[in-house]
């Protein structure tokens, strides 16, 4: 059990800066996601928390102690890797027992503890099997067992489900989250899969090029992305960006795109220049009466909903609408936007402009 606080953490490899001055707080018992594309610095951040890399500068506090420059063995953290990394010549029981035996725990205690962990993971039946013949899911359960058995302060997981196929990954992510809910141990989890992060995380840090773009609860990050990068990375299909040249004043509730006033939340800062009107696919509705027009390029049936791709004067957008609403490629449609959900961005910096919608969220780091 531990609270983890990261202050101004930085890591350089020669002239390359992998992580630039990061700060965030992981509450005790939280399931915390480090999310971003490959090369964004998420794994380096995780490895620094675990003590597998030493930071160039900055502080790492675990349970009230600054451990930034201490070796991994002094941090009482368990690490679960993407590749299961089991001892191939040992059976399941021996693999899970290993960390305890190497700590010098008595045989009877080890037996009791391994039994407990096997029960939590539902692998009592395979304790005496060699690990070689196990399925991918069981191997990952054994790897988890070896991490859990030590009862560490926190778990670090580096894309532990990345090697599994999609269907099974969905199943394991549920299982992992349920396990967390039972044990309540602080967990830091690295992934590049935004859906996995949304599904499993209590909080998410979104990283890009070694920089934290946003830190917060999944729904807040989805609804109020701090940057265009976050808006694009989270959600599928991602947020639509309608690019235009325009202006807003504090208090204004619309912007003008292609001679049409489109709704937006009450603006809290002035801006003039190249802007982006950001709207999620489910917040666009097709209506014959709407004056902002576009041409349907494609429709994609998804069961109860469909995704409609539309060419507009300000670029291509995707709308998610009910599948029983007839729509055909080639036809011209009117687009209605749910103004209360719209984000405006500075196109050049990618920064979200302040409005009533994202008030309080942008001062995130």
């Amino acid at each position, binding site marked *: 059990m531990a609270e983890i606080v990261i202050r101004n953490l930085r890591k350089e490899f020669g002239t390359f800066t992998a992580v630039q001055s990061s700060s965030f707080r992981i509450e005790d018992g939280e399931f915390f996601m480090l999310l971003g594309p490959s090369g964004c610095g998420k794994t380096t951040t995780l490895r620094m928390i675990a003590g597998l890399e030493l930071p160039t500068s900055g502080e790492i506090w675990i349970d009230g102690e600054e451990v930034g420059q201490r070796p991994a063995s002094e941090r009482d953290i368990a690490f679960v890797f993407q590749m299961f990394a089991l001892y191939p010549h040992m059976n399941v029981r021996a693999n899970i027992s290993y960390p305890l035996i190497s700590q010098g725990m008595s045989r009877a205690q080890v037996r009791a503890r391994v039994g407990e962990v096997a029960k939590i993971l539902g692998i009592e039946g395979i304790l005496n099997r060699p690990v070689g013949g196990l399925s991918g899911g069981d191997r990952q359960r054994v790897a988890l067992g070896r991490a859990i058995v030590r009862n560490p302060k926190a778990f670090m997981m580096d894309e532990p489900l990345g090697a599994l196929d999609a269907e099974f990954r969905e199943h394991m992510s549920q299982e992992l989250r349920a396990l967390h809910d039972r044990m309540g141990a602080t967990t830091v989890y690295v992934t590049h899969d935004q859906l996995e992060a949304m599904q499993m995380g209590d909080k998410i840090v979104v990283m890009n090029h070694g920089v934290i773009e946003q830190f917060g609860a999944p729904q807040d990050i989805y*609804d109020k992305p701090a940057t265009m990068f976050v808006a694009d990375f989270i*959600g599928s*299909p991602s947020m639509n960006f309608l690019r235009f040249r325009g202006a807003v004043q504090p208090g204004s509730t619309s912007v003008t795109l292609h001679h049409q006033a489109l709704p937006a939340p009450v603006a809290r800062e002035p801006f003039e220049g190249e802007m982006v009107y950001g709207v999620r696919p489910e917040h666009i509705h097709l209506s014959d009466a709407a004056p902002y027009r576009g041409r349907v390029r*494609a429709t994609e049936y998804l069961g109860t909903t469909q995704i409609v791709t539309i060419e507009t004067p300000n670029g291509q957008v995707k709308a998610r609408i009910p*599948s029983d609403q007839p729509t055909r490629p080639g036809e011209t449609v009117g687009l209605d936007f749910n103004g209360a959900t719209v984000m405006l961005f500075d196109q050049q910096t990618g920064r979200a402009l302040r409005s009533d919608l994202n008030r309080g969220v942008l001062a995130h780091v």
Partner: protein
Amino acid sequence: MAAADVSMTVPNGAFVVLLGPTGAGKTTVLRLISGLEVPDEGDILIDGRSVVRETPAQRNVTMVFQQYSLYPHLTVRENLAFPLRSPILNTPEAEIARKIGAVAEILHISHKLDNKATQLSGGEMQRVSIGRALVREPSLHLMDEPLSSLDAKLRAELRIELKRVQQELGATLLYVTHDQIEAMTMATHVGVLDQGRLVQFGPPREIYENPVSLYVATRLGLPRINALPARLFPGAPVGASTIGLRPEHVAQGDGKPCEVLRVERLGDQTRLHLRLDGHDIVTLTDAHTRTEPGDIIAIAPRNPLYFDAAGRRVA
């Protein structure tokens, strides 16, 4: 047995997607049609002509594989021209230039024609592979998970492209995948394979709304359909042992009380994980719901599907 019993008609100009998990026999069916495998029994007709005794080259089909296999030392133009220059086709040079121009335009790779194949991104390489099939204008295009090695964004883009290209050219496509999104979004007809057998064939909407079995019902839809004992809710027809409830068909407000185990916020929607008499149920709700774990909500089926003990649809 890789392919046990498959009978279907791919109409001219159709985009048929064979859907099934690993080992369902998808790729075997493609290889049988292309002539890379010989069937133990049965017949294959292309344009009304039995082709089982013909070589792959004689069948006038093309095949696009998951792993794009371009000639790395050739340019995009030379890669596209390669099949047309085969001695069997022996296409005049002017005709080759015309076809390459047209296909490159459709696939949006005109500006890359003089690049070496190795200078392309993954998505561009797969476009060229598809282009190499399209230039031949065969009776039938066979595609074996051509998008599965691409990242999610590119895959979404190429799904739309491929469907557009197929429609523009009026080409006939038989495409296999394990990805239900590809099947639903691109197909004019979906064939669902189960252990080598074709268990249902029809438009995506029909497969989704009117599955013939519990197996088919689980192949389409995310989150997956809830399969529960039919007796959990009143009104089950005679012979029904399982009730199939798609997440969007769990009505909230009235009915049986169940506990909310977990609230999963995905941004555009929120999934509720419920527990009813020891059974797990997933349903969807408003993105900003105030429901929390531990709450009790009442649910009732809406548009349920019923299946018998063998998984066959009964109502």
